[in-house]
């Protein structure tokens, strides 16, 4: 699996390269600036990319902008965005194209290398992986209007774990319920949000997006 890494700090870039190589990824390119990253993403079309939000030249959200731009040029190009902070605004922007294959994680998540590698593979496969911190802040919203208000507490829990990119099996294990029940809850969520049966992964993305924009 070919990976492009965009990270301006040498230590972190080097660490990511070693970590991913240790987990069997092939590093197609590891770059330190936004223009280089855009060229690598659109030119090399990797299976997945790891992108830092804050990068040169302006040291603001250049990495994020490159990720969104690259996905505009190459729809669905899998991007896992890493940052020292996770913001709901950026999560919503990343998911806005509804194409899936998006991840948005705190840099600390790299410490759990196995789980991180798993998340990279999920994103490469078109899944959606949001940092638990973003999800927690989503859940903190007290009252909601629209279809989201209709979700039961259990459905909301399932949706939150879905947003973190967990599989039905993982959700079942986490909530101590049967995998079948998770599937039932998921169907309930899709139904309430008016998402027609299609590709299951994509429906998950749409459900999470509805949650973000709710």
């Amino acid at each position: 699996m070919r990976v492009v890494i965009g990270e301006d700090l040498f230590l972190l870039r080097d660490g990511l390269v070693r970590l991913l190589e240790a987990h069997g990824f092939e590093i197609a390119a590891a770059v330190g600036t936004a223009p280089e990253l855009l060229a690598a993403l659109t030119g090399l079309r990797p299976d997945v990319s790891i992108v830092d939000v804050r990068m040169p030249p302006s040291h603001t959200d250049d990495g994020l902008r490159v990720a969104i731009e690259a996905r505009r040029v190459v729809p669905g190009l899998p991007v896992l965005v890493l940052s020292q902070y996770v913001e709901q605004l950026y999560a919503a922007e990343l998911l806005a194209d509804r194409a899936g294959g998006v991840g948005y994680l705190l840099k600390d998540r790299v410490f759990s290398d196995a789980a991180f590698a798993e998340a990279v593979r999920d994103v490469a496969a078109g899944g959606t992986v949001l940092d638990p911190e973003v999800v927690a802040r989503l859940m903190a919203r007290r009252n909601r209007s629209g279809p989201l208000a209709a979700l039961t507490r259990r459905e909301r829990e399932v949706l939150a774990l879905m947003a973190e990119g967990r599989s039905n099996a993982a959700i079942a294990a986490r909530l101590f319920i049967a995998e079948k029940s998770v599937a039932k809850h998921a169907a309930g969520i899709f139904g309430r949000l008016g998402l027609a049966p299609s590709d299951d992964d994509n429906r998950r993305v749409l459900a999470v997006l509805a949650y973000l924009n709710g």
Partner: protein
Amino acid sequence: MTTSGNLLARFLRGLRANWPALLLPLIAGGALGLTASTWPELVIVLVLILVVVAPRESARIAPYALFAYGGYGLYLMHSLLIREANSVTYGFVHASWRPVFAGDGAWYVAQAGDNRWVLVEAVTCLAAGVWLLARPESLGGGPVRRAVAQLRGTGGQPKTVPPLLLIATLFLWEELFDQDLWFGTPWQSGVTPMMLVAVLIAAAGVAAVLWLPRAAAVLAVAGTVLLGLVGVLSGVQWITHPAMPPVGPWSGFTVGFYGVVPLDSGITGAFAGLEGVALVVAGCLLAPRLLTWSADFELAERAQALARRVDGLTRTRSDATETAVAELRRIERDLHDGAQARLVAVGMSLRAVEQLIGTNPEAALALVAEARETSSRALADLRDLVRGIYPPVLADRGLAEGVRNLALDAAVDVDVDVALPGEPPMPVAAAVYFAVAEALTNAVRHARADAVQVGLEHDGGMLRATVADDGRGGADAARGGGLAGVERRLATFDGILAVSSPLGGPTIVAIEVPCALSSVKISSC
């Protein structure tokens, strides 16, 4: 209700709003007494029609009608032109005239009793005219209203001596002139040289008011004091020698005038004296205000304003530096107790791992996991800290997006309406951002709001933010706490914070900071 009923109601409403119009028929009635009109009723009916058809216009000309009528009353008092008639009706007064022989001809003077009542009516009309003119809706009342505002120090006018006062002073002075000079002698009627002089003086007064307001104000005060002294002197003379005809301007005449008082006895002399005293006192009270017309005074005012500004700046600067120091102290403490302490723990764990790794690899592994967990916590601490210093989205994207992200993070539905064509300076952006954040937190935590509206706009060099919630109200920036801190922080930029929060809600927090927007993309470095 019928249409005619509607019309009547509208007419009555219009009449109530333009009640001075009703004075016109009264004045017309009074004026008719002066002439030997054959059809007095016709004139009255015509005026009534005017009032009904054009109440607004009638109301606007009413003050001038009063001036004309009152002025004519004064003229009547001074005048001997109606010597053909033995009596005349002026409004409520029926004045009769008696012949007086002076020099080589006979002329007529009004009876003393009539005299006073004609004067009372005339002066009442003139005063009513001035009062009506000072009403906001009257035609050409601007100068009078400005003069009144200057006298009272209201309506944005400095408390000073109105230059317009000169006209009143000149009028009173001219009244002192010999009647003979004014209206000619019985054997010489028509326009006299003195009338031309009087008109010239009045014109000079108007010119001075318009183009030399400073000089006009000084002359008005000086003239008032002098006039008062003349009044006191002539009053004393009439009281001490009531039988003797007055000297000076009134020599040779049985009746002189001083201000609103006809001088013909000891009692009226006393009135004239009192009027003189009143004028002297008024002049002396107004005199200090002449300072406001001096250039030095303007400079002093400006210096005072500057001093006030410096006081304000000193206060907000000390607030700002205190806040900054307190912030740094908090950051230092947070670092010391948080990230720093955790990094020390990580170091100690790693040192222990070094020692254990050969002998007890399992224990070493557990320690490494612990160190990793601790470093995660240190990072979380640092993240929280940075959010409190300069939030990432604000740094990356600016105020508008920062506020949008705040809204997303809020625990309730937040409707954001942002219209910013550019970006305010970073310190202002941060202050406004934290102000909105504080208001949002209060709306959720204290007001228990279900919905919040946040507005952000820039208009006329002013950055405005509003946070309105549907909660239970009762917030007060004056009680201290978060909003008071926000207010202090905004004050550094001459910004203000206003809170409207009645018990039971809703709460509206409004923030206003003067600043210019730049179109330059902001950057964190």
